[in-house]
């Protein structure tokens, strides 16, 4: 991993402070209501209950059920086309689904009385391609939704935005535009932008897949920091090393189904399904060419076979 740009001493405001949400934080009565504290540790923050989704005749999600507790770090993995990105986009109704229900901090996603924009504003989302607003400066990127959606004053929004920018180590770039930053920097701004809204949950959709390898570390560092502060996170990623280190739980998906939903020790130690085993062995085979073979890993009582590179 590259050196973390985060100054250790500058930890004044925690990145995640869902518990100190402003008075307008309520999504609707009964949910994460008007200033009431978010769910206590261990309480369910995201409940995905039997959802299915079709594109025409093609079923992309089949009866997916899982729960994410407050403060939990859940990694969603699986081969491409397995529906993991779709699943995570259903959590804030970015993708509609036809069956089942998702509840975020007590608020039902599919419900006529739910104010979807308001719900979404409290569910942070980070995309593979950053999706910063290209025509706005970094500062404006961080403040526009705070002002227009949460109704914060320009000063408050700017203060919080710049605070978070400092936390991701990019204070010097406040007046630049997204096109002037590297991919890794843009992704850190995107994380800060999501955090500026005081989210109760953060969703990451392959946050490092579009980055040059040397920039992956700086983004993962920010996410680790966030996890340490107790943010509830659901992360779609192919970074299995990262998942192994940070995740509490791993959800493995294949062909639109949740095949495995296990603590990370169990998942990496002894995946039960054959599909997960195949997936893991494929991913772990991708050692860098010339790396020494990890003989210790080979002798682990794991059912995954790590194949040596073919000799030339």
């Amino acid at each position, binding site marked *: 991993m590259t050196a973390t740009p985060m100054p250790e001493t500058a930890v004044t405001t925690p990145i995640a402070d869902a518990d100190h949400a402003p008075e307008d934080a309520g999504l609707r009565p009964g949910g994460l209501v008007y200033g009431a504290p978010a769910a206590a540790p261990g309480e369910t923050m995201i409940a995905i209950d039997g959802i299915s989704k079709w594109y025409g005749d093609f079923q992309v999600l089949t009866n997916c059920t899982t729960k994410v507790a407050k403060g939990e770090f859940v990694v969603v993995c699986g081969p491409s086309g397995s529906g993991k990105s779709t699943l995570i986009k259903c959590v*804030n109704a*970015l993708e509609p689904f036809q069956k089942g229900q998702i509840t975020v901090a007590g608020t039902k996603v599919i419900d006529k009385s739910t104010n979807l*924009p*308001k719900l*979404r*504003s*409290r*569910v*942070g*989302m980070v*995309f593979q*391609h950053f*999706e*910063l*607003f*290209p*025509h706005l400066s970094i500062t404006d990127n961080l403040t*526009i*939704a705070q002002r*227009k*959606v*949460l109704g914060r004053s320009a000063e408050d929004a700017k203060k919080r935005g710049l605070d978070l920018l400092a936390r991701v180590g990019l204070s010097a770039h406040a007046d*630049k*535009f*997204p*096109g*002037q*930053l590297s991919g890794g920097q843009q992704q850190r701004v995107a994380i800060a*932008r999501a955090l500026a*809204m005081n989210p109760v949950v953060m969703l990451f959709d392959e946050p490092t897949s579009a980055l040059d390898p040397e920039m992956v570390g700086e983004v993962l560092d920010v996410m680790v920091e966030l996890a340490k502060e107790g943010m509830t996170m659901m992360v779609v990623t192919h970074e299995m090393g990262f998942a192994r280190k940070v995740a509490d739980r791993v959800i493995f998906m294949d062909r639109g189904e949740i095949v495995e939903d296990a603590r990370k020790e169990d998942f990496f130690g002894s995946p039960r399904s054959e599909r997960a085993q195949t997936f893991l062995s494929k991913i772990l085979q991708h050692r860098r060419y010339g790396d020494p073979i990890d003989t210790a890993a080979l002798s682990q009582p794991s059912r995954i076979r790590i194949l040596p590179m073919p000799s030339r």
Partner: protein
Amino acid sequence: MGRAIDHRRSTTDAANDGAHRGHRVIQQGGAMNYNWNSAIFFDLSPEGGVTYTQTLLTGLKWTILTALCAWAIGFSVGLVIGVLRTLPSKTANLVGTVYVELFRNVPLLVQMFLWYFVLPEVLPTATGDWLEQLPYAPFYTGVLCLGLFTASRVAEQVRAGIQALPRGQRMAGTPMGFTTAQTYRYVLLPNADRIILPPLTSEFLSNLKNTSVMLTIGVVELTAAARSMQEFSFQVFEAFTAATVLYIIINLAVVALATLLERFIAIPGQR
């Protein structure tokens, strides 16, 4: 009517002769069919106390005024119609599509006649009479007609601009909690507008030149002024050379302004 046709034939012949003989014709004065007379611009026109130059400049003034008013309508209506065509709602799409196909597929000249000659007859008598007696009726009718015609073309540019944006950009506004209207206002339109500024400049130039069609319903804009100068003075070369030069100057000025605007709204770090 017959007279007008004869007259046009004679001027065309004169123009052909002139073209065959090249500039020598102009220099030799009396020995040729056409007599270039620069001083004509300072002669008084029979319209009462004004020189032909003033006639042309008054025409230019109306051309600019008409173009600006029509553009105000064309741009704002076009923006709305263009957005309608990109919304997820089927009804909105249909409204937008019907508008665009109606207004861009009928020749501007025919639309001009429909608005000016047909509409007052179709309306209830009182309303129709009121319309016809309105001061500057041709001007208002022409501006409205040209504006709505231009709107159909602007709408297509707007639609193309929005659809050219990466799908993720729409995706980026929504999870921040923006409503659809806010996503358009704060994300999609500012970016789409930057993409479509160059074709929109062309559209504005077309709009400016299309004002000349309004001479058919009696607005004395630049082309009509040149025509009136030609009819009174028989100096067809001078009249239309002047009109040509004025059109080019004003259009080049628009292009220069658009280039400045383009530079002004350019996003740092892009291209």
